[in-house]
């Protein structure tokens, strides 16, 4: 019976292995679990997680990073306010030097004091070509950054850049921690140390990030002591986990958010945004480059219907790149759908209806391809609605889905259903979108839009320090985009959030295209007050 024993021994070995593996797993740190429902802790479900938590690689570059602070920060109305700096920067007459004085007594969460050297280190590392920061070009204007004493930082610019102060919401990292590491791969990417209201306590990649309140925060210790960001990519799963009480709040598509309207314990927040959907009309293409076609398309689209049908009302028609409630928006560009006008424009430009109803000019059919990224339902719906509106004016739009790998090389010649939108300053979004010097520069000015009036106005807006001059310049840009619409702007999306109703003082900001971590009613979780 020796063999039997061996079989048993083998079975025992398998079980033993399993047990050992189980025990090894159990040796991870143990402690009490947290409970939902308390007002001093909150669990939020977001769709995607940051690639890195190091500002040197781009984390939190637009503020609200929780772990870090910038020299400046933005309030609920996106107005700049001092953060790590004592006051807004002093700017010289030429707009070339910005001087910041640091707040006294600010300490990093490891107890070390913040100094001007940390600020200089942060900016110099990001500007270093070897640092893999994909947003480095946003700091392109900086010629030099240096410390003056322990508490003054001076930026010298290459050219006058009016919106520069808005770039300095960029989070500051401690040199004594991050300085010795490779910024691209060092442990600072996953174990950050900052001055912010929260301290990272754990990051289980693909699952969640946990934060605890920083008791020594210079702005006062947050009332919400524990903050958990759960990564739940699937919309339906996020909604289900919110309903089951596993999550306290989540970002949701409008239709799923609507299922919570009768839930008394939850409140829905609708954040307006700069996040627009537009069709790029490449200049190089014989049809989309034609001004009559562009204007006809602009008149033919029914923006209102797109907002109502595609976005369930959670959005606004986009009459240009800036949303209708932006302070820089020019009201006179507002225009309704006008099919008769679209047909008239085409008639006048000699685009004659062909046998199949599609317009023809000089033997060329008014037809082009519109690419949209596959898997993006909202863009697909926009593309199809656009094609059907265009058809009514006699223009054929062939909507095709593709991955970005396929779209990128074709952006120059084919229309793309694009989505952009930056906050902070009109220059941030508009210059890269429209300036002819950036035509085809990566994802900048994808359609090679080239309009001298727009170029001049963008330059004025970028250089001038005078707000009235700038406002006039951006009004010129918006009007020029109506006269020669190189993009058909369709909608601005609202971002919808559902959150347990346990706190007071919640607001939403006007949000950028990118949203998830820094946006939503939890943009300032550090100032929430528990409801009595």
């Amino acid at each position: 019976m020796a063999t039997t024993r061996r079989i048993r021994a083998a079975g025992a070995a398998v079980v033993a292995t399993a047990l050992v593996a189980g025990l090894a797993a159990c040796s991870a740190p143990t402690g009490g679990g947290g409970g939902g429902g308390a007002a001093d802790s909150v669990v939020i479900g977001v769709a995607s997680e940051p690639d890195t938590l190091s500002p040197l690689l781009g984390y939190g570059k637009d503020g609200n990073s929780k772990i870090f602070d910038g020299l400046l920060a933005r309030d609920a109305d996106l107005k700049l306010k001092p953060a790590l700096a004592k006051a807004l920067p002093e700017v010289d007459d030429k707009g070339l030097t910005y001087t910041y004085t640091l707040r006294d007594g600010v300490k990093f969460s490891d107890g070390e004091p913040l100094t001007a050297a940390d600020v200089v280190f942060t900016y110099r590392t990001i500007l270093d070509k070897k640092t893999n920061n994909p947003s480095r070009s946003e700091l392109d204007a900086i010629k030099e950054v240096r410390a003056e004493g322990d508490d003054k930082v001076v930026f010298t610019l290459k050219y006058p850049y009016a919106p520069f102060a808005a770039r300095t919401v960029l989070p500051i990292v401690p040199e004594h921690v991050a300085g010795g590491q490779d910024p691209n791969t060092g442990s600072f990417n996953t174990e950050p140390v900052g001055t912010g209201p929260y301290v990272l306590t754990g990051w289980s990649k693909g699952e969640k990030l946990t934060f605890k309140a920083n008791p020594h925060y210079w702005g006062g210790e947050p009332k919400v002591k524990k903050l958990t960001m759960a990564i739940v990519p699937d919309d339906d799963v996020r909604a289900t986990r919110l309903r089951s009480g596993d999550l306290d709040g989540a970002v949701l598509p409008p239709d799923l958010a609507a299922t919570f309207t009768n839930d008394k314990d939850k409140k829905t927040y609708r954040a307006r945004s700069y996040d627009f959907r537009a069709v790029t009309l490449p200049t190089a293409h014989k049809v989309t480059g034609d001004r009559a076609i562009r204007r006809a398309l602009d008149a033919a689209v029914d923006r209102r219907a797109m907002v109502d049908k595609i976005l369930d009302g959670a959005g606004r028609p986009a009459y240009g790149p800036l949303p209708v409630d932006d302070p820089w928006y020019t009201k006179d560009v507002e225009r309704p759908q006008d099919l008769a006008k679209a047909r008239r424009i085409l008639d006048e430009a000699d685009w004659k209806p062909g046998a199949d109803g599609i317009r023809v000019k000089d033997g060329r059919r008014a037809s082009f391809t519109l690419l949209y990224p596959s898997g993006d339902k909202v863009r697909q719906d926009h593309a199809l609605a656009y094609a059907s509106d265009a058809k009514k004016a006699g223009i054929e739009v062939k909507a095709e889905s593709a991955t970005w790998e396929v779209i990128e090389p074709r952006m120059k010649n084919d229309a793309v259903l694009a989505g952009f939108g930056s906050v902070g300053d009109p220059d941030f979004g508009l210059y890269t979108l429209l300036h002819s010097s950036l035509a085809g520069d990566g994802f900048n000015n994808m359609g090679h839009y080239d309009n001298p009036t727009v170029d001049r106005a963008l330059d004025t807006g970028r250089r001038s320090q005078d707000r009235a001059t700038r406002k006039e310049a951006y009004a010129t840009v918006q009007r020029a985009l109506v006269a020669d619409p190189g993009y058909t702007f369709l909608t601005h999306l609202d971002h919808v959030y559902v959150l347990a109703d346990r706190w007071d003082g919640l607001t939403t900001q006007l949000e950028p295209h990118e949203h998830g971590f820094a946006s939503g009613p939890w943009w300032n979780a550090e100032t929430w007050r528990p409801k009595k």
Partner: protein
Amino acid sequence: MSPLPWGAMARLVGRRALFAVPVLLVVTFGVFAIAAASPFDPVKAYGGTAVLGADQETLDRLRTNLGVDEPFVVRWGRWLAGALTGDLGQSAVLRQPVAQVIGERLVWSTLLCAVAFAVAVVAGTLLGVLAARRPGSWTDRTVTSLAYVLEAAPVFWIALLAVWLFALHLGVLPAAGLTDTASEQVTAGQVARHLVLPAGVLAVSQLPWFTLYVRQGVADALAEEPVRGARARGLGERTVLLGHALRSGLLPVLTLIGSRVPELITGALLVESVFSWPGIAAATVEAATAVDFPLLAALTTLATAAVLAGNLLADLLYGLIDPRVKLDDM
């Protein structure tokens, strides 16, 4: 009981280890070649959405910094040289050293696979014997048809079904993650609760195969002479079934356990994705879609090693259990 043939076992392990070297070389070379031919753009995977608005200078700079444009043979050579000195390189997409990525995750994947495999082996043997006892009986038919249905069902589908039933509908088990979302610490109790669904699903996906083989093996053995002899000697049905039929019926199953490892790994890949289990699989998916050469190569090496080890283990066991097989001949 005769002493274990340590010498023969050691020689087999040695031979297999030598054989593993060219296999691993070919496999890692293949990974680099396939990754180089992949349509995914590593720069886009690295920068994520930030890159979808970047200028050309930024895209070019990232491309250079990441070393994406070098021929894959060069990169393979450099990776190999590093790996031999114990340096597995840096994962670009996770911004972490590869060794750290694997270290953090291997425990959880091993736990998941070991539990699932153990459950599948035990339950499979049990069901198989039950079905084989009376071939054609009601029990046999139920077990067999259930096994065929489960074998045909894709594992991610079973996983989604399980989430729907146990997590959403009944609300008895957590749907995802290693611990409760609000919890900061990893506690044994929470992990155990969170392990039930993923391990259960993975076990169920492995179960039909074991059941069917055990059933076949035991049923065949029951018809063989030794069993008839045992019955003729008046031994109890229990002794006949477990002592004679199961013992010889398990032999073919044992050899195939090793070949089951690849399927276990791919099954774990899908299960981990569905249940957001923070294991190796999630990293593999990320590494593959991001064309993260060092991470991908290390993970593939790990998977290959697991398969080779599985085969070796099966051979060793077989050699020990079946006296007709000589370890030195394998």
